[in-house]
């Protein structure tokens, strides 16, 4: 393995082992082990259909794998034995950002943030309002509180998506192709928000096709193909001539593998 754990960041927040997921005959995740340390930014890359999205969605059990073990806070449970409470703490630990934003289309921007805060976190309307406005300010959308998602550009919608996840104060942010549905001119504004979060030391997992971004922001790159993690390591290792042939072949499309 190329990856060597960095001692400074070795406090694991979440660990999964042997994740396997099948849809009929198709194995989309094949015995995947994945571990995440505090403060780490991990970029998952690989061709379409390689299982990246399924892996990231398995981390909060949005997708329930057929087999595998989850470990958080020293508790380790196989998928068959996972309790409601354990699942709840996984969800609370993680915030998720979707490729197609997943904003609640019948609610205003502000309501998109406050509804989960009130209903799931039990905050008062006033506390929720206050927190939501703070977070929206962070992503530069404090003037869009009363807008509905459809009135916003894709980039703005995605920033709301990020804000909604952040408002719940997760330990880990899971971003599933956060810029893939945006038109090219809007990609930058979303990547800037994510970069700012990484500078603040936020723990993140990003599935992405933005190789330059992955190279710059990620501490670790995970390369997946056919449901398996083929290799993982620091960006300098992955984006180099020493990377495995399959990785170079993939990155070749992006003209990046020679730095």
């Amino acid at each position, binding site marked *: 393995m190329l990856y060597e754990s960095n001692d400074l960041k070795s406090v694991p927040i979440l660990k999964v082992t042997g994740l396997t997921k099948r849809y009929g005959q198709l194995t989309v995740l094949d015995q995947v082990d994945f571990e995440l340390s505090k403060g780490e930014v991990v970029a998952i890359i690989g061709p379409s259909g390689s299982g990246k999205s399924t892996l990231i969605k398995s981390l909060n059990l949005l997708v329930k794998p057929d087999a595998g073990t989850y470990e958080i806070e020293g508790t380790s449970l196989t998928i068959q034995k996972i309790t409601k409470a354990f699942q709840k703490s996984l969800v609370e630990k993680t*915030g998720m950002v*979707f490729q197609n934003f997943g904003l*609640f*289309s*019948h609610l205003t921007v502000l309501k998109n943030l406050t509804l989960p805060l009130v209903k799931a976190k039990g905050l008062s309307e006033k506390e929720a309002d206050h927190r939501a406005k703070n977070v929206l300010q962070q992503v530069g959308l404090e003037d869009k509180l009363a807008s509905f998602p*459809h*009135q916003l*550009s894709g980039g703005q919608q995605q920033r709301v998506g990020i804000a909604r996840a952040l408002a719940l104060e997760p330990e880990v942010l899971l971003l599933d192709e956060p810029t893939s549905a945006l038109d090219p001119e809007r990609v930058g504004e979303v990547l800037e928000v994510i970069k700012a979060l990484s500078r603040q030391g936020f723990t993140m997992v990003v599935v992405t096709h933005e190789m330059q971004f992955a190279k710059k922001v990620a501490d670790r790159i995970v390369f997946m193909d056919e449901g398996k993690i083929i290799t993982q390591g620091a960006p300098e290792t992955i984006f180099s001539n020493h990377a495995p042939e399959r990785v170079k072949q993939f990155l070749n499309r992006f003209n990046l593998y020679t730095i």
Partner: protein
Amino acid sequence: MNFKPEVLVNAFVELTKALPRTLLIAIIAMAIGLILGTIIGILRQTKLNKMLGVWVSFFRGTPLMIQLFLFFFGLPQLFPIIGKLSAFQSAVLVMGINASAYVAESIRGALGAVDSLQSDAAYTVGLTKLQTLWYIVLPQAMKIALPSLGNTFIGVIQGTSLTFMLGISDLLGLAKMRAAQNYRFFEVYLAVGIWYWLIVMAVTFINKQLENKMAAGKESI
């Protein structure tokens, strides 16, 4: 030709006496239909699907009049307690149940039309399944179902005209009585027809306003 406009006008005015009863039957029946139908529509996503499918199929597949007769004249022979219900109560109940079948189909379709990403997102922000249904999916489904719910309501309004068969003097009941007295069938039935038409136009208008209001946040940029 022997058409008497004044008879038409008189009948039209007199029918206002029966208007509240017709509206009351329609509104209460629709309210029952909405509540019951929404619950059935939701429960069709569960194991009860098959059983409720039979319910929906029966009430959509048999004439409303037969349902009214079965309930009002037939069932009391088996369960005397049902005979204690008045004609009005029976009519409202049967029409509500009948409407529930149509509402259930609209809601079921609309629930299926809500993007599954909405529920996925709700899960990741920590909402329970029930909260997701109540705060996220159902409001969006209602918006989708609104036009067809409006049609169901129109069906209910027109269906109330059958309740005269149970002896209720609704719009049509009163019109029949009047026509039997003055033999001015054309004028009286035209008057009652105009009343139904006006009610349906009013409902259509209100429904359109509602649709527009609900779509307010949906204009594209």
